[in-house]
């Protein structure tokens, strides 16, 4: 078949055939399987379950830990099948936006910025100053009690 072809033409055909082969080879290489661990893209609810105690308290940016006895406070958050459920307040002597036990949930279960506490008497929104992460044993929450001018921050530690 190359009998009637010039040398330049033969070279051209060889180059083109090689290019086609290279492209087919690359395609074949791409077919090698990528292993993704099962559940890698599954979103996980942040787990904050446990009993939390106050380590420091602030009112309008000023620390008030020494002005009031916050030591008796305990907030117990329950978790059931990775779903937020009930909460209990150990002592009702310490200022907190809700005064009775009830249910709670995140505003967003994967990237929560707020915690909603619902009891028969009250509903309260508590903000996370920094978004909590599962496994962390500290959190900083922000809330109001009465007048919106007064902002309270508690540092809580997991017991």
């Amino acid at each position, binding site marked *: 078949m190359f009998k009637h072809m010039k040398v330049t033409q033969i070279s051209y055909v060889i180059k083109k055939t090689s290019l086609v082969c290279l492209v087919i080879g690359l395609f074949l290489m791409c077919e090698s399987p990528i292993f993704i661990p099962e559940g890698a893209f599954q979103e996980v609810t942040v787990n904050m379950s446990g009993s939390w105690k106050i380590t420091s308290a602030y*009112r*309008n940016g000023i620390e*008030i830990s020494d*002005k*009031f006895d916050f030591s008796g406070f305990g907030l117990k958050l329950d978790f059931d099948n990775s779903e937020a459920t009930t909460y209990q307040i150990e002592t*009702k*002597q*310490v*200022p907190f936006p809700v*005064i*009775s036990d009830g249910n709670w949930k995140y505003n967003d279960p994967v990237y929560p910025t707020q915690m909603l506490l619902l009891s028969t*008497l009250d509903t309260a929104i508590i903000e996370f100053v920094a978004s909590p992460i599962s496994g962390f044993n500290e959190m900083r929450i922000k809330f109001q*009690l*009465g*007048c*919106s*001018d*007064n902002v*309270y921050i508690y540092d809580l530690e997991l017991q």
Partner: protein
Amino acid sequence: MKNFKGHRFEWNPYRAMAVFFVCMLLIFSMCMTILQIDQPSVVNAGEAFEITMQVEVSKDDDSGNPFFLVVGFLAPRSWSTATNTSVRFESSVGNSSMRLTTNDEIDENTKLPWNTAFLRRFGIGDNYGEVEWVTFIADEAFAAAAGATGTVYITALPGEDNMIVQLAYGISNQTWGLGDDNFDLVFTDCMEVINGKGYPSNLCGPKPRQLVEQATFTMDDLITIVFDAKEGDDFMLGASYVDLCAKAYSGDQVYEICNHEDVAALNYMGDDVWEITFWPRSYFDIPEDQDIDFMEVTFTNDNGNLVVTNIDGSAFIIAPKCFD
């Protein structure tokens, strides 16, 4: 003698003589007088009410040129008078609506914006504070070369809070300002705003001693009470112990903690200043379904024989103060 509701008149012969001579000197100038004010003595919170003011302009001797009537109204800041009040007048020379004065419109006498001029010139009467002068100017000018009479109608809207306050009314004109006889002023008797929210704050009374550290608060806040023994009655100076005697009012219920050394002792902060921080709900052990309306507090020494109260012997009132 002028006689109208709320005007305080005390006979003083020296003042009368002085007024007589001043009037003789000014007899040929413009003279603006408030003849009568009809203002209710009790109004409902959040419910508009009308005030009428009879006004006389005796003579515009200067030129007979048209002038703009100016009305000043002293009212509580919490009423937001600038946005909630309408003013107009009807007179023998013409009727006009009135609008708020701007900062560019000044009193020719003091060279200040009208509301500031009223405040500087006339003060705030018996109120200890928390009131403001709001000034209005006529949309239309009228000449009153031969004098005129008229009625100014003010429709005011009280805020939602119960209170006792002294209102005041002033008139003047843009041409002459607050000089000579070109204005008149009346402070009325203190009036009550009822059926609103909270314990009534008495702006007509003595300025309440500031006991709560926070500027604004409700009974759901964590409250810090600061007792400065150097203020008022100073017989607690150098005390070694100060105790809080407090009552919380919740509807018909009264909760009291007095002579309770464990929880009611104030902490010494130095320089004769004492303080206590508590959460009223837990402090008084208020049931979950009840709220505290207000508190009464006094301060005592360890023997209980010295008690710091208001000058009249009454307890200090701590009522919520929040503008949410």
